[in-house]
Every structure is written in structure tokens, then in C-alpha cells.
């Protein structure tokens, strides 16, 4: 056999290959352990000790023979060195000894410490010199809210059409441009986080968040086949849901950011956005539910308290479980057991509350921060009346409770500042044949939360509070078709506005707009303006733009006639509209017709608050339009007031800008048109020249000869001669 290695006869260095393929011999010491803490003995006691040790070893399930033990001997003193080597048959036995006998109390003074021989060797050889770990260079992250620093103060929106996503700036015509054209692939849909910091895409593998001026990936959450997501109000956490239970395949990556085998079978996950860590998973299938129960799942399945401190989950009919963040442990170690509970809502945090909490956090005052409030309702069970309860959390003190009778269904609507809670109670008559509606309005800012009742005869289809306001709008209907929708059926509705009458402290009707088809109320995020839309109808698609303070710019004047300020600003029509959304500033309204609902005239339009169309794009396969939300303003109340006072001064600058813009645009347009005409004319002249004079003349001639020539032609058709004789 020829010598294969080491024969470098042709001057080629095989060292690298040899290194690579050299057979790695087993070190062979893996089955060897070192046991420390052996009593130090004389030679005479050796046999007894060894017998005792093997007995102890065997007692702990580790079989060992005396021959396998080697006890080093200090010849000078004639005593043992206090440790021994044990050789096992294989590595597994050695591991077993490691687990079972480490820290084993041999007697009162001696405790075994078991170590692998290889470990001891390794640590003995350890380099003692300290090497300073290399500091990772600090790379500043992009500012996630950079878009707010736009010099023109424009808003952004995202459109999703076909497989194409675009993020646009919305401003004056010359400033409306595409801000970013991402190349995201294969996702279900996009969603903004509540303050607009991130945009999320839902992929097969999980959720991805993007953000910053360059739209770099910011975070990802590996939840396969995710279908729904929900951000917490302060953008700290994310909830993902998939209809498929989580499966952790063998050999899957493990870590804080991934599902572990414990999560198998669940389908709802809570994540920390900043770290990307998985906090906890839940199953939305409640125990005792029929497994194939096709019940509509409530989304969001987890409801967040407005300060991101708690997240609550309902087990219908039994309890509300509130979890603390970020540990995700059950608050107080027990759920709120509420017999029959159907639904609940957290009270939102108003601007005032926010300021207060900030003040409390900043300066250590004795004043306690306001607790979170929860509202829930329970239906009539046996002799118990239905009940709406307001509960402070985490103290779990009941703030207010109201009993209700003949209740079919309740819906809880918080005003966005948490000033009012409206419980829309669908009540039935004794015969249970007809349904009417009561609005129970809790005034949260007053002592003991007084309740006002507004009684209505019709069924209320939609209810909406004016943001930051004391008004609400309802859509009611007495249409017999209500409740059995058919194709082509558009339900007749009435829209009514109510306002809190300060003098009497109750809610009074401002005005009713009869016989509409509107079924959606969209308040401007700043209040005052409201759009009534007919959504999801195949025959009607009207948009009505209303102003509720038309007469007085300042609401405080108040002395004007009740309800006189309501004014229709304009009407418009967007055929097949499916979504209506105000921009965060309340200046513009976007309507879109999504291909997810129907395929007729898909696309979107942007209107101003008066109902004037600004742009409209009809694009087939158009799916989504979402304005980028804005975080709450950082300006203090006083600053805002000051700005409002000096509005006229500021607006002068903007007016000038607008004027400049207008002339600029027209100049550009004129230049463009001129260029187009010049190009066209040049081409025409060229072709005409090629055509030749002759032909041109012929064509001209045809035209010239067109002048009308009237010719009278006398034609003798027949001539007969008659001779008349007398």
C-alpha cells in the first residue's frame, strides 16, 4: 500500500487538506470523572472506604466496581490526597454519576463534588490573562418618527394594489409624491402601528415591522400563518393570531424569540416589540367549547389597557383575566370571576389623564395616579337583572353598577377621552317581538358617575362619539328589511345628532336627518366635522360632509340657538365605496373601494373636509388605503392655545406658499404642454413634408371645393302634347 500522506514529492502542500480530513480520535476521557471531597485516609482504611464508596454509588443507581476507582496517594505523608478518579464503562454512565452524585453528602463532613475529567483539564489549561471584550461600535438607529419632521408637515398614507405597496406623501399637488416603494413580497396585508411608528406586513412565516426614513426591517415575529395582528396602544407589544394552532417542529430554532414546545396548540401570541421576544401564548379555543364550533371570534381577542400596563382576556360567561405586562402573569394571581360576563371595554386615557400621569411620574406627589377603569356587562340570568358595571383596576373596586331589564344585547362605547360611556341597550318588549333601543350614558367625570337615559323607538345600527366632544351621532332604522340583508337591498336610515346640554345636564337631540341610506358615521379626529357614508351598497354610495359648528368658530359662545350650527357642507359620491377614513389632521377624507369586497371600480379618492374631490384614482386590484397615524402632540395645552390664537399670522405664510405653488404648477404645466405641442407639430411637419406637395394640394383642394354651390337643375321629365280641338 503506498504511503498516502506525508509524501510531499511534487512540492504541493497538502497541509490544509490533511487538517481538514484528519480523523479526530476520541479523547477517550469522557467516561472519566473526578470525585472531590473524599475523606483523607491511611492505607489501612483503603479497603473499607472503597467498599463504602461503591456501595453509595450503587445506591444512587450508578454501578461502579472497586477496580474502576483510582485513589491517588501522597507517598510523603502516607495519606490519600482526598480525591479519586472513577472510570465508567461509557459516557452515559459518567453523566449519570455527574447528575446523581454531585453535591452528594457522603457523611457529615464530606460532600462529593463530581466533575468530568476533561472539564478539569480544560479549566486547568485556561488562559489566565484577561482579554478585554471588543466593544461593538455604536451605530445610531434611524429615528422612527422621522416622517413627522417633514418640512411641509405632510401626512403619509399607504396603498396596497395587486402585489404592490406604495407609501405616499399627501400634500399640495406638487408635494404629493411617492415616499417609498418597498419591495415586500408575498404578504396578506399591511397595517400601521397606532402611533404610526411601524408598518407591519403579515407573511406566511410571521409578522415583520418596518420603519424609519429608509424603511428598514425593524423587528420580526415568527408566528407562522399569522392572520390577524393587534398593537398595544403605546406600541410596546404586539398580539398575533393564526387560525392554525402553533406547531413546533423537531429541531426548530429555540430562543426567547421563538415558540417553544410548551406553546404548541396555542394560536394567540403576545410579543415585546422592542426586543422581539415572545412573552406568552394563549389558545383562543376555550375549554368546553365544541371543537368544531364555528363561533365568530372576537377581535381583538386581548384588550389592552390604554397605558399598556395590563392586557385582559375574556372567557365568555365566566371571567375576565387580566395580565400584567411585561411579565404576562395573571394580575393578583386570580381572574375576575364574573358570572355570565359577555363583553367588556377598558376606559381610554384622555389627554387630561395623560397629563396627570406624566405629572405624577415626574414629581413625586402624594396624589395617586388615576386607576384604569373597566366596564363590563352581564345579561339577565334567572332572576338577576342585566347589569353594567364599572370597575377600577387594579384595586378591583366597583365604581358604579346599573341594573337593566328586558335586555337583548348591550354594546359599550367609550368616548375617546374617557369622559363618557354610552351603553347601547337593545331592549325587547314583553312579547319579545319588537326591539327598541336605550342609550345609557355614564358621565365619568362626575361624582358617582350619574347616568342619563336616551330612549329611542327605532333600532340603532351605529353609534359614534365625537372625538374630544360632547356630541354623538347615531344611525337608526325602522326599515322592515333590517336584519335580513339581501342583494340590492339598501336599508333606509335616519341619522341623529345629540349634544350634552350643559344647563340641564342631559343629552338632547340636535337634529335628525330623515330617510338617508347612510350606515357609517365618521367623525373627524378633531371633532366638529362628520361624514355620513353609505358603505357596502351596490346602488348607493353617497358621502355627506357635515359641519356641526358652522355658525360659531368658537364653541364656547354657546348662546346660539340649539342645533342651528349644523350645516351640510357638501355631498359627493364614490361608487362602491367600502372604506372611509379621515386623515390624522382631520383636514382630508379618504374613501376607497377595495377589491377584497368587490371588483367594481376599485381605487381610492381623497376629499377635503368640504367634500371637494382632490384626487381620485381608479385602479383595478386595489386593496388597501391607510393613513399613517400620528402620535399625540407633544405641545402643551398653553402652546396649543397660543397657536390657535395666532392662527391668522401663521396662515399668512401658508397662503403665500399656496399662491406660489399655484403659479408654479401652472407655469410647469404650461411648459409641459408647450413642449408636447412642439413635439407633435415637429412630427406633423416632418410627415407632411414627406407626403409631398402634390398630395397636400389634393387634400387642400378637396377642402376648398367644399363651398356650397347651389345649382338648380331644371329637368324636363315628360312632355306631352295635347291638341285641343274645339
Amino acid at each position, binding site marked *: 500500500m503506498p504511503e498516502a500522506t506525508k509524501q510531499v514529492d511534487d512540492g504541493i502542500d497538502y497541509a490544509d487538506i490533511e487538517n481538514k480530513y484528519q480523523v479526530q480520535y476520541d479523547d477517550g476521557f469522557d467516561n472519566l470523572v473526578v470525585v472531590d471531597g473524599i475523606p483523607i485516609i491511611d492505607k489501612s482504611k483503603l479497603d473499607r472506604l472503597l467498599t463504602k464508596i461503591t456501595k453509595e454509588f450503587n445506591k444512587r443507581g450508578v454501578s461502579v466496581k472497586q477496580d474502576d476507582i483510582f485513589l491517588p496517594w501522597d507517598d510523603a505523608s502516607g495519606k490519600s490526597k482526598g480525591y479519586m478518579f472513577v472510570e465508567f464503562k461509557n459516557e452515559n454512565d459518567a453523566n449519570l454519576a455527574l447528575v446523581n452524585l454531585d453535591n452528594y453528602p457522603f457523611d457529615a463532613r464530606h460532600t462529593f463534588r463530581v466533575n468530568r475529567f476533561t472539564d478539569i483539564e480544560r479549566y486547568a489549561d485556561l488562559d489566565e490573562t484577561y482579554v478585554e471584550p471588543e466593544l461593538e461600535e455604536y451605530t445610531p438607529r434611524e429615528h422612527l418618527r422621522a416622517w413627522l419632521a417633514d418640512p411641509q408637515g405632510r401626512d403619509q398614507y399607504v396603498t396596497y394594489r395587486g402585489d404592490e405597496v406604495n407609501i405616499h406623501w399627501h400634500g399640495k399637488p406638487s408635494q404629493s409624491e411617492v415616499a417609498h416603494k418597498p419591495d415586500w413580497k408575498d404578504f396578506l396585508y399591511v397595517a400601521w402601528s397606532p402611533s404610526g411608528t411601524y408598518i407591519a406586513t403579515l407573511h406566511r412565516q410571521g409578522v415583520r415591522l418596518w420603519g424609519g426614513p429608509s424603511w428598514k426591517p425593524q423587528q420580526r415575529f415568527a408566528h407562522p400563518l399569522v392572520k390577524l395582528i393587534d398593537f398595544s396602544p403605546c406600541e410596546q407589544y404586539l398580539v398575533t393570531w393564526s387560525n392554525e394552532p402553533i406547531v413546533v417542529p423537531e429541531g426548530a430554532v429555540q430562543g426567547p424569540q421563538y415558540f417553544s414546545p410548551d406553546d404548541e396548540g396555542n394560536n394567540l401570541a403576545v410579543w415585546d416589540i422592542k426586543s422581539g421576544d415572545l412573552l406568552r401564548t394563549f389558545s383562543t379555543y376555550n375549554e368546553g367549547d365544541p371543537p368544531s364550533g364555528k363561533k365568530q371570534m372576537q377581535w381583538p381577542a386581548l384588550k389592552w389597557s390604554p397605558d399598556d400596563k395590563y392586557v385582559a382576556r375574556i372567557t365568555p360567561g365566566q371571567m375576565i383575566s387580566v395580565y400584567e405586562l411585561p411579565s404576562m402573569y395573571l394580575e393578583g394571581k386570580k381572574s375576575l370571576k364574573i358570572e355570565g360576563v359577555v363583553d367588556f371595554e377598558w376606559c381610554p386615557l384622555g389627554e387630561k389623564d395623560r397629563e396627570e400621569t406624566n405629572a405624577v411620574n415626574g414629581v413625586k406627589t402624594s396624589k395617586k395616579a388615576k386607576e384604569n377603569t373597566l366596564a363590563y356587562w352581564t345579561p339577565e340570568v334567572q332572576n338577576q337583572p342585566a347589569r353594567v358595571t364599572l370597575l377600577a383596576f387594579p384595586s378591583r373596586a366597583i365604581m358604579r353598577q346599573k341594573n337593566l331589564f328586558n335586555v337583548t344585547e348591550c354594546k359599550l362605547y367609550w368616548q375617546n377621552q374617557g369622559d363618557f360611556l354610552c351603553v347601547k341597550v337593545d331592549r325587547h318588549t314583553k312579547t319579545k317581538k319588537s326591539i327598541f333601543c336605550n342609550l345609557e350614558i355614564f358621565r365619568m367625570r362626575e361624582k358617582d358617575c350619574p347616568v342619563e337615559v336616551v330612549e329611542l323607538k327605532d333600532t340603532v345600527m351605529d353609534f359614534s362619539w365625537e372625538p374630544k366632544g360632547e356630541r354623538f351621532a347615531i344611525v337608526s332604522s325602522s326599515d322592515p328589511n333590517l336584519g335580513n340583508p339581501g342583494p340590492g337591498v339598501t336599508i333606509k336610515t335616519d341619522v341623529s345628532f345629540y349634544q350634552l346640554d350643559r344647563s340641564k345636564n342631559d343629552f338632547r337631540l340636535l337634529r335628525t336627518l330623515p330617510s338617508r341610506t347612510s350606515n357609517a358615521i365618521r367623525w373627524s379626529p378633531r371633532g366638529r366635522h362628520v361624514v355620513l357614508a353609505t358603505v357596502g351598497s*351596490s346602488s348607493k354610495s353617497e358621502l355627506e360632509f357635515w359641519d356641526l359648528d358652522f355658525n360659531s368658530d368658537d364653541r364656547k359662545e354657546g348662546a346660539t340657538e340649539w342645533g342651528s350650527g349644523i350645516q351640510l357642507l357638501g355631498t359627493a359620491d364614490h361608487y362602491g365605496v367600502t372604506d372611509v377614513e379621515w386623515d390624522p389632521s382631520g383636514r382630508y377624507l379618504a374613501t376607497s373601494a377595495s377589491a377584497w369586497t368587490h371588483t367594481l371600480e376599485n381605487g381610492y379618492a381623497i376629499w377635503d373636509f368640504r367634500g371637494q374631490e382632490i384626487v381620485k384614482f381608479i385602479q383595478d386590484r386595489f386593496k388597501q388605503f391607510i393613513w399613517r397615524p400620528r402620535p399625540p402632540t407633544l405641545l402643551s395645552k398653553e402652546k396649543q392655545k397660543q397657536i390657535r390664537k395666532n392662527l391668522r399670522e401663521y396662515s399668512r405664510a401658508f397662503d403665500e406658499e399656496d399662491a406660489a405653488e399655484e403659479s408654479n404648477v401652472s407655469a410647469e404645466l404650461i411648459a409641459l404642454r408647450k413642449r*408636447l405641442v412642439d413635439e*407633435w407639430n415637429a*412630427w406633423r411637419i416632418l*410627415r407632411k413634408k*414627406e407626403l409631398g406637395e402634390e*398630395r397636400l394640394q389634393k387634400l387642400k383642394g*378637396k377642402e376648398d371645393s*367644399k363651398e356650397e354651390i347651389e345649382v338648380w337643375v331644371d329637368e324636363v321629365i315628360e312632355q306631352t302634347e295635347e291638341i285641343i280641338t274645339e
Partner: protein
Amino acid sequence: MRPILLQGHERSLTQIKFNADGDLLFSCSKDNVINVWYSHNGERLGTYEGTNGTVWTVDVDPESKYLISGAADNTLRLWSVRTGKNLYTWEFPTAVKRVAFNENGTRVVCITEQRMGHQCAIRVFQISHEGDGTKQSKEPLYMFNPIGSKATVCAFTLTPDVIITGHESGKVALFNVKSGEEIDNNERAHSDVVTDLQMSKDWTYCITSSKDKAARIHDTKNLMVIKTFTTETPLNSAALAPNRPYVLLGGGQEAMNVTTTSLRQGKFETRFWHKVFEEEIGRVKGHFGPINTIAVHPAGTSYASGGEDGFVRVHHFDDSYFKAKPYGDLEIID
């Protein structure tokens, strides 16, 4: 001015055509009849009867002497405009989908349908003006089968023996009829069936419409796309307005879908677009079915549209149409 409604057909219109002087309007429809009308008042002058199938296409020679028609009964017929007499009939194995005269009315090009094992064929006939026109040669002057996607529309160009065609695939091509050779093509002129092709007054450019919702102006010399007009509905017809820088586009959703949708979605309007700026200027409502064909008076004083609803609407332009300068004082050569 109020449009004149021509109610002379019982079924949907297939093509309408003004004669060179613009005093007559010819219309053909699926009800087998060709009508001729006075264009200024909408009075019916007469009919050309004898066809046993949908008349798909019609054209008139520059002297308004002969009328040529192609129909689903596999015939190409030559008529005397004045007397309404069928002067000559050619028969083919399949239906005739498109006919067109050349510039001086001496030749006719026709496209026959691809069906029942027969390929789509393009034939050119010499039209003899001798005598009363009943003596025509039976055999075509030239004949060839275009390779690839079938031709749907065609017209003569200024170059002798060269025709321009539009195809089912959206292709626009130039063919030498003598050799049947494809001289030039633009495979991606449209992305769907080319539904109409009309020449400019001086025959140097043409406009095509297509089911891909766009209409385009092509240079007939090199097939370069000069202008594109993109609408939101499939187009059946496109016409050029002489002397004014506009194009007229007509269409609407497919006839088979009309009953399931409302009028407002149908988009059955005639659209006026600016020829140079590619911007929509206005729409004219009226039809309650898709518009199948549009023709403009050679002097540009009126236009007519024929719809799936069986009506022809003749619109005479108001004075304001000629005076209006929506884009300011820009001289645009026709």
C-alpha cells in the same frame, strides 16, 4: 345641439361610416341591413338589402359611387350607393369581418374570419369602375394568411400595396399584400384585441382602440406609438376629430355583462380626449349599451356613434366646440 337619434336598426350596430363629403352616413348592424342616412337631419335615404347575416363592416369609396360590405353570410358585396343595387358578390368559406377601400377607391382589402379549419385570410380585390360595376374579377388580386394571431382590423396605407392591420393579440403590423410579408410590427401595441383602426385625414397616422382599455395613435410609417389614451373601460372604437385636436373614444363593458350592472358603471359614454396632452376633456352620454362604433364627419362638424342598444346618435357640434380653447392659444397642426 340635441343629438339626432337614428332608429333604423333592430339589433346592435357593428360599424358606421361617413362618406368623403360627409353628407351621407352608412350604418350596418346585426339585423342584416345596411342603412344610409342624410347626416345633417337624420333622414333615412335608403337601405341595402339582401345580406343573410350580420353585416360586420362597411366602407364607401371616395366618390360615393360604390359601397362595399362584409357579412356573416360569408359574402363580400359591392353595392351601388345611388341605386342600392347589389352589383357583385364574392363568397368565401368564412365570415368577412373587415373591409376597407384604398385612397382612390380602386382596391378593397378584406379580412375573413378564422373558423372551421380555415385560417384568417386577407384578400385584396381590384374594383373595376368600368360600366355599371357588375363586372368584377372573381379572384382576388392578392391573398395571404397572416401568421400568428388573427387580424381583426385593417386599412390601406399611402404606400402602394402596404396595409396596416390590428390583431387579436394586440399586435399592430404592416403587411405587403403582394408577398404577404410582414414588413414591420409592434407586438406590444396593445395587450388585448384591437377593436378599431381609423386613418387620419392625410393617412400618415392612425388611431387604434382595444379591449385593453387604451387607444393609441400610431405613425403608419414606422408603427411608432405617438400617443396613448388610457381609459377605465374596454374600448370598441376610436376616431380622430379633423381640424380639432381631439380624439373620440367609445366602449363600455362587455355586452354580456351589461344586464348585471347598472348604467353608471357601464361607462357607455363617448369620451373626448385631447390628442396631444392625452387628457380627457369631456364625455357625451346617451347610449344605454356599450358603444360599438364611432365616426366623425370628414369636415369635423359632427360625429355619430352606434351602440349595442341598436341606435345611432348623430351629434352636430355647437359653435362653442369650435371656439373653445381649453388649453389656451396653442397652435396644433392637424
